[in-house]
């Protein structure tokens, strides 16, 4: 089956051929913030594609609104009703209803029966079009000034078509890479608290297509995606032997990560996908290890009588953040992947540097894909928080607070953090996401209780 997504610059006759990109961009960093007003009328449909056009339009709108960065202009206010992707819109009509950007698109069915979407994004105030940076499917080359974007996928991939479209708009207006065409793996939890069933589950990043990957016979925890979006590593209690496994999404096959004396857990792929860092507990002591997946070579990273766990490698692979209670309580430390001493931000040189010095207990560090921040779970006076801190231990910011907030995971573009939350004592866990700025906290609704979310890379 054709699985590859085709992205082609569509050749469209545009009345307006001016070059240059407009100045307006959505502010997704800190500071004052106002949602960006955007008009997204239903995309036009070629004959036979009417229902698809409506569905895709709705998904694009939902995706963009879910970020908290965009405000939809009320369709009841639309003046121009005869939009056509081949023609320039009447800018004054859109300016009058305070739309800063306008999406115009067309959905059709290709001769070989697949679904196509073509998009244009108009800068209303600049009276010009936003050019896209897109990848040419035939040559694989990036085109910087594409006048529009087009995608073709099999009809059953309609949601992915919509996510791709939304990602294109989001990227153009925020400057960040996309986020919607991705998946989230998590642990679906059912049953009473004292007999919980925990199984692997997966869904689209917007919560659609939720499905269980395992039966629930064995409890499973902490799934994490590889860079390939086809593999997941996680921990399972199978055979009374808690061990790290790798799950292949295409074949459904699971394989234990090596044969270890002690119990292995807290697995996480390195950002290059070539290795997995994890913990092994043996005779009452937990240390960090890394396994090269190609050579199967295992290297011990720490050798300390304290607990060392939750390793997370930096984006460039040179360092590892982890949780350790070597200082008396769980805190976040950083070490060089090669084990060499490093200069600590707090002074001196050491094999591992503590970077958290705030009040409370810190754990589950996760290095951001952009490399500049580490997300963590913090416990302070009976409350839990998700927060971020600079890799030098500066600039700690808390993004959430609840009875239990745990297990941050980054979106592939490093702009959003998902985690799980128990709102009140005794309430089951649910998945949440929050913007890196701390705005737009929202639940990702799941059919069952859920925990340990982890994001896939952007799909190919």
């Amino acid at each position, binding site marked *: 089956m054709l699985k590859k997504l085709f992205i082609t610059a569509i050749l469209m006759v545009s009345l307006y051929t001016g070059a240059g990109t407009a100045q307006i961009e959505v502010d997704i960093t800190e500071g004052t913030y106002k949602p960006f007003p955007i008009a997204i009328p239903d995309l036009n449909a070629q004959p036979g594609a009417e229902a698809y056009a409506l569905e895709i339009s709705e998904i694009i709108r939902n995706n963009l609104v879910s970020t908290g960065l965009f405000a939809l202009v009320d369709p009841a206010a639309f003046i121009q009703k005869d939009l056509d992707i081949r023609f320039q819109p009447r800018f004054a009509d859109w300016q009058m209803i305070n739309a800063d950007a306008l999406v115009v698109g067309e959905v059709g069915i290709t001769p070989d029966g697949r679904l196509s979407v073509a998009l244009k994004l108009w800068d209303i105030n600049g009276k010009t079009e936003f050019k896209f940076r897109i990848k040419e499917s035939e040559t694989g080359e990036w085109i910087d000034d594409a006048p529009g974007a087009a995608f073709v996928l099999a009809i059953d991939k309609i949601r992915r078509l919509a996510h791709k479209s939304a990602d294109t708009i989001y990227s153009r207006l925020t400057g960040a890479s996309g986020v919607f065409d991705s998946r989230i793996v998590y642990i679906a939890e059912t049953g009473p608290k004292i007999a919980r069933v925990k199984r692997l589950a997966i869904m689209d990043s917007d919560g659609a297509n939720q499905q269980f990957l395992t039966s629930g016979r064995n409890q499973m925890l*902490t799934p994490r995606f590889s860079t390939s979006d086809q593999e997941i590593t996680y921990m399972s209690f199978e055979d009374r032997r*808690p061990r790290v496994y790798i799950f292949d999404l295409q074949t459904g096959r699971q394989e234990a990560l090596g044969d270890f004396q002690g119990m292995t857990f807290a697995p996480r792929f390195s950002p290059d996908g070539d290795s997995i860092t994890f*913990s092994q507990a043996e005779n*009452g*002591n937990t240390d960090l290890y890394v396994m090269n997946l190609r050579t199967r070579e295992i290297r011990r990273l720490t050798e300390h009588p304290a*607990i060392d*766990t939750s390793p997370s490698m930096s984006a460039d692979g040179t360092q590892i953040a982890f949780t350790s209670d070597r200082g008396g309580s769980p805190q976040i430390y950083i070490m060089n992947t090669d084990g060499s001493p490093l200069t600590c931000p707090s002074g001196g040189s050491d094999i591992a540097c503590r970077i958290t010095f705030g009040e409370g207990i810190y*754990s*589950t560090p996760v290095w951001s894909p952009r490399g500049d921040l580490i997300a963590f779970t913090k416990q302070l006076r*009976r409350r839990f928080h998700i927060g971020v801190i600079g890799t030098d231990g500066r600039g700690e910011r808390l993004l959430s607070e609840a009875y239990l907030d745990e297990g941050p995971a980054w979106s592939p573009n490093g702009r959003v953090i998902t985690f799980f939350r128990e709102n009140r004592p005794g309430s089951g866990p649910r998945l949440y996401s929050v913007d890196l700025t701390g705005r737009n906290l929202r639940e990702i609704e799941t059919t069952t209780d859920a925990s340990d979310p982890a994001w896939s890379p952007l799909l190919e």
Partner: protein
Amino acid sequence: MRHNFKVTMLAGLLIGIGACAATPEPQETPPPIIVESQAEPEIVRPPVQPAPVIQQPVGPTPGSIADFRENVGERVFFDLNQWRLDLVDQSILQRQAAWLQSYPQTRILVAGNCDERGTREYNLALGERRANIVKEYLVDIGIDPSRIETVSYGKERPIDGRSNEAGWQMNRNGFTQIIYGAPRG
């Protein structure tokens, strides 16, 4: 060193507990005797297969899992974020050891459990630490380590569903489970 056990004190406790156990031990089974030495404590094993001479009128069959649960005690409880064994825990483990000496064909799984006030991965490590401290204690007072498996369930297997101090206290435990060599009841 994380722990130092007073072998002489243990020997005394073991004898005392043997005497006051709810289920009378068969006469053929002498209480375990621990001989203090400079090196490792040495255990004089009781005779294998002590067949009970007195039929129990009520209660679980001696040597059964139910016997272990009701008359010995299968859990020790830990303080918040701790893995030390206090005197109460030690006396429970001494009873467990005595029972295990009486039924040498049995094997156990010691599980380390944590309350929900911690993160998953750290608690898996902490639970392993707890399970191991129980194992080390049992080994120190004479149980063959090959009879003991350990596992950590972290915070994943609470026995008390309450999200309060009482519940958390129950859930911070070391759980000794007979996994081989004993009938259920």
